[in-house]
């Protein structure tokens, strides 16, 4: 190995690490606010990438239809929940959020899809289609179980994951898709060529991390989310609704997932089931961060990316084994240092 190869590998590791970081952050976000171990996070990534890729080829993305279906389901559930006190404002809110919003997005996709708009319009449309899915998935699958145990929520996540993956297979087919990069071309840093897409990845990851930081530090809603993570009862007592923070966390996660998909779609082939394995690597990072620390998760994710990159060079056949075994030393370390706590 020489310096050039090392530089290539580090660059490659940073690129995948940045994506894992986004996933890891979303997982930590969702878990700390809702106690949901959100296995389907990877599906948002796959949906995002595949939606963008379909838009690239001028096709109408089936995810928009899916959004509409989710919306109708959420509408019916809300209707049922509020059957005892059905008044105009409640109904209006329900119709607006669950029917009009996805309807508008659906129409937008219908109009924009064949137009072959610029890459940024397509990327934006992708985010607009995927992000509200977080809301509906929370509403449909998790809200009725808001006070369930972590285990039950975890199994529900598995169910959601299977359903979303199945939907992905039906809508996108079994073959892989690849999106067009946001901008082509590359720059060179000395001997190292850096593609514009990887710059997008670094830039977006940093922007999202900064954005999340600002959201959590500077906005009241962000603080309410943090407050919920720190002390759920305290947050409820000041009037922060569990549902509000839950929905916000899920929408943020879906948005971050969609963006990850847009970023990763052009550099690799995405299948309906790719999301799971990418998501799991985000999990490795999130576990190292104790499912609580954003900065440690982000750093760990970069670490996972770089380890993965180097093992793919040195021992490619053992790559997955090494990457997923990474958490074992972390667990050993935790089991030695962390004192035994009472479970919740």
């Amino acid at each position, binding site marked *: 190995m020489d310096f050039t190869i090392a530089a290539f590998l580090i660059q490659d590791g940073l690129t995948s690490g940045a994506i894992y970081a986004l996933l890891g952050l979303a997982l930590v976000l969702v878990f700390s606010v809702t106690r949901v171990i959100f296995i389907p996070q990877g599906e948002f990534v796959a949906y995002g990438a595949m939606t963008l890729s379909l838009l690239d080829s001028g096709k109408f993305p089936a995810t928009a239809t899916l959004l509409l279906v989710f919306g109708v389901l959420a509408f019916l559930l809300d209707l049922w929940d509020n059957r005892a006190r059905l008044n105009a404002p409640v109904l209006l809110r329900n119709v607006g959020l669950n029917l009009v919003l996805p309807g508008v997005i659906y129409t937008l996709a219908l109009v924009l899809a064949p137009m072959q708009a610029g890459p940024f319009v397509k990327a934006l449309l992708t985010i607009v289609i995927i992000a509200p899915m977080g809301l509906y998935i929370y509403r449909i*699958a998790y809200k009725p179980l808001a006070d369930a145990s972590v285990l039950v929520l975890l199994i529900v996540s598995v169910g959601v994951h299977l*359903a979303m*993956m*199945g939907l992905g297979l039906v809508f996108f087919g079994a073959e892989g898709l690849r999106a067009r990069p946001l901008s082509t071309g590359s720059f060179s840093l000395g001997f190292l060529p850096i593609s514009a897409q990887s710059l997008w990845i670094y830039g977006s990851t940093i922007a999202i991390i900064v954005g999340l930081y600002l959201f959590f530090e500077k906005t009241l809603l962000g603080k309410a989310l943090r407050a919920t993570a720190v002390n759920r009862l305290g947050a409820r007592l000041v009037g922060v609704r569990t549902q509000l923070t839950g929905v916000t966390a899920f929408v943020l996660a879906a948005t971050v997932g969609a963006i990850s998909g847009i970023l990763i779609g052009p550099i690799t082939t995405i299948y309906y089931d790719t999301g799971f394995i990418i998501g799991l690597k985000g999990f490795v990072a999130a576990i190292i961060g104790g499912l609580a620390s954003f900065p440690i998760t982000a750093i760990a994710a970069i670490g996972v990316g770089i380890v993965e990159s180097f093992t793919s060079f040195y021992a490619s056949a053992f790559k997955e084994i090494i990457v997923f075994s990474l958490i074992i030393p972390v667990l050993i370390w*935790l089991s030695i240092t*962390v004192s035994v706590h*009472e479970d*919740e």
Partner: protein
Amino acid sequence: MSSSRRFIPALVVLVLLAVLPQLPVPPFWITLLNNIGIASLVAIGLVLLTGVGGLTSFGQAAFCGFGAYTTAVLTTAYGFSPWMTLPLSLAVGALIALPLGLITVRLSGHFLPLGTLAWGIALYYLFGQIDLLGRHDGIAGIPPLSIGDYRFMSGSSIYYVIWTFVILTALAAQNLLDSRVGRAIRALRGGGQAPEAFGVNVARAKLTVFVLAGVTAALAGWLYAHMQRAINPTPFSISMGIEYLLMAVIGGAGYVWGAIFGASLVLVLKELLQRLLPDLIGTTANFEMIVFGALLVVILQFARDGLWPVVLRFFPSKSSHRIRGDAPALGKREAPSPGTPLIRVEKARKTFGGLVAVNDVSFEVKAGQIVGLIGPNGAGKSTTFDLITGMNSLSGGQILFEGKPLTGRSPRDIARQGVARTFQHPKILPGMSVLENVALGAHQRGTGGVLQSILRLERTEEAALMAEAMRQLERVGLAEFKDRPAGDLALGQVRILEIARALALDPVVLLLDEPAAGLRYGEKQELAALLKKLRGEGMSILLVEHDMSFVMGLVDHLVVLDFGTRIADGKPQEVRENPAVIAAYLGGTA
């Protein structure tokens, strides 16, 4: 949990299982039942691990893999006979589970499931990389099981082998849960503090159940290898691990029979979906996964504890634990002669950050005494209590028990010395019967291990433990409730139950944390009478109490704390007149 409870339905099911292959049922049912049987084995392990022990694992499929590959390699490459490899397969499962368990079971909550997720994947990929294991193609040509010349080739012949193992394993699991070790495992869910306080080694109980789950999964893998006769890494992947967990959770993660129910439900459902969906929807697209995932979500939304409890509701049953009259008595500790010092607290100090919770407190409990430790809320009583029982470590000073320092000892160890306690917020296991809750207190007076429990070789000791538990229930006056779930009791009764449980430890001294809180007047009187009776029988008691009227006529000695400091110490009458005590209790400037 006695196995005689659902005797008749169990017999019916057993007979049905036995004759099924002889009936003119579609042979495909047998294949499906074989798959269900193998999945049930893994799910039973998961019920022990997850449902009973509260530890979630996604990695059980990998343990199946170890069982399957062990026998595959030994039978194909080294000519072992399949029956010879059975113990070896199980041993490999146990050997792998041990280090993984050591690493993971000490961690609480979500680290375990996520940890198992990660190593489940790693192990799957590892199977595909090892030449000895045939890499991704796996190993074919595994010999079938055979007895003499008879070879278990057909589905309906291996059916009997599989279901014999399933039933034996289920019974073994049932036996285990109905034993001393099982009670310790069942206690894990209530948090580690309480079991430690009556001598259960929580870490070891967790490790035990983890290894047992690994062994059952390895057994399933062994059977799988000889049923399929060709293996490769696919059936041992993480998605199978997830599916096994689904079976356990959907079935009802706390019930051994729920595991079999869950496995049947999941596998039958998948078959049905595959058969029925294309006709229902009129397309051959793959909706199975979607419907399966959605069903999972819906089932959990309606039946959070799984479906087995729902099934059980159709079969209301009352169980009653028979106490054997001829049960031998357990060994008893020599009671110390009255007046000898038992607990000496010397300048005990505890600080949390800058806050001094216990400020150089000293007092003494002598044998045959009831000592009250009182003070307003937040005075440091419970912290002092935790210092004595080892739940918290001292920042300064020392605590002696029978002249020996307790510093640095674990709660378990302190309990073993004969210091039993109750909790301010009672820590009972609501689903377990009153009798079993008390028997848990006698945990460290028994020695029966896992194997004895499974084979029911510890029945004499178990009878003795139960008889002892019964004796303590009679002693405190709860005998009539022995078979009721502890969760049905009123708060006052629960507090008494905790005392009975503490007594079952055969303690030298009883530490009671606010035993009268939340009790009705009459209940308080009864409690006071009970404590006096215990003192009469030579028991020493240290009780933390907030309610002065309760302690006044009861205790021999009172220690009053306020803001972590001892403000009075003496006979109840003297203490009551103490101006500092009046001020602390009524506030203002008395």
